[in-house]
């Protein structure tokens, strides 16, 4: 059975907006909470300075995240069982609601590794159910050290409470990054070996597959 929880949106200035949303049990069908009265305001000065997401305990899972620290044994077990998620909270913005999930602690919003890449990134991998299907796909995982895309907005993860009881987002100034199914691809500009610049714009009107690869 669903338990209600109260989410808080800390708005710029001193206004505080409260909303109540249900927490869906992990095995239940997705339940979209009623939308809070938080709509998209094109005036960026009206964006919330910070958004605090109150997290509640849950039992959920996502595809196992393989990192450079994953042992062979861990790889075998995690591949079958997935990765457990223990906290869930609701996040509303631009008139849409999204469920945010945390794995087991400890948590970190910084990456102590040299690369931001998924194999080495040491920050917490947050899952955001962006399509409301209660299924957490691999591409719905976002490292807390990097700007997080929610819908068409970018957020910085400012804080994750040590006990996972709350997560604080702040609207980011970062350009659009990351892919969300059903949303525009982020723009990019890369070069071929001949120095030819390739951008997203030049594929307009075409269906294109981006294939990430290496010679190794």
């Amino acid at each position, binding site marked *: 059975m669903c338990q209600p929880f109260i989410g808080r949106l800390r708005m710029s200035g001193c206004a505080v907006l409260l909303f109540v949303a249900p927490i869906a049990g992990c095995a239940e069908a997705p339940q979209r909470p009623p939308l809070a009265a938080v709509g998209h305001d094109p005036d960026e000065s009206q964006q919330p300075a910070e958004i605090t997401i109150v997290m509640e305990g849950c039992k959920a899972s996502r595809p196992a995240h393989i990192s450079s620290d994953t042992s062979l044994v861990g790889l075998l077990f995690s591949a079958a069982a997935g990765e457990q998620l223990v906290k869930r909270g609701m996040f509303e913005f631009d008139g849409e609601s999204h469920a945010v999930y945390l794995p087991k602690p400890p948590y970190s919003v910084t990456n102590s590794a040299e690369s931001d890449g998924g*194999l080495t990134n040491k920050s917490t991998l947050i899952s955001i159910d962006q399509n409301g299907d209660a299924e957490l796909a*691999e*591409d719905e995982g976002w490292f807390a050290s990097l700007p997080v895309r929610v819908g068409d907005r970018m957020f910085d993860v400012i804080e994750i409470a040590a006990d996972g009881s709350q997560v604080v987002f702040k609207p980011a100034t970062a350009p659009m990054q*990351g892919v969300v199914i059903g949303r*525009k*691809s982020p723009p990019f500009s890369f070069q071929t070996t001949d120095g*030819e610049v390739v951008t997203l714009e030049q594929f307009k009107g075409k*269906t294109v597959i981006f294939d*990430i690869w290496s010679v190794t």
Partner: protein
Amino acid sequence: MLLLSVDPDYFPDDDDYLNRAEQILGDRALDWLNVFLPGGWGEAQRTFNVSGYGKLLVDPHGVVRGVNLHGADLERLVRQIAVETAKADELK
């Protein structure tokens, strides 16, 4: 098809991977555009939020329609997009 190579993350010198990349693409007769992500995996993560090898399917409107689809699933979605595009063209 656009190939996004993360090789600069693996190899200290361009010579270590550029020739191999050309050879692999030549052997397979692939004339797809191949670009390099200077920041390798870190750049793939930051730009596309992709943590490993994978595919992104983007429709003619620049909308991401699928992530890490393979085989029949990928073909099915490509066909679906083609049908949608054809219908939209008819309505123009």
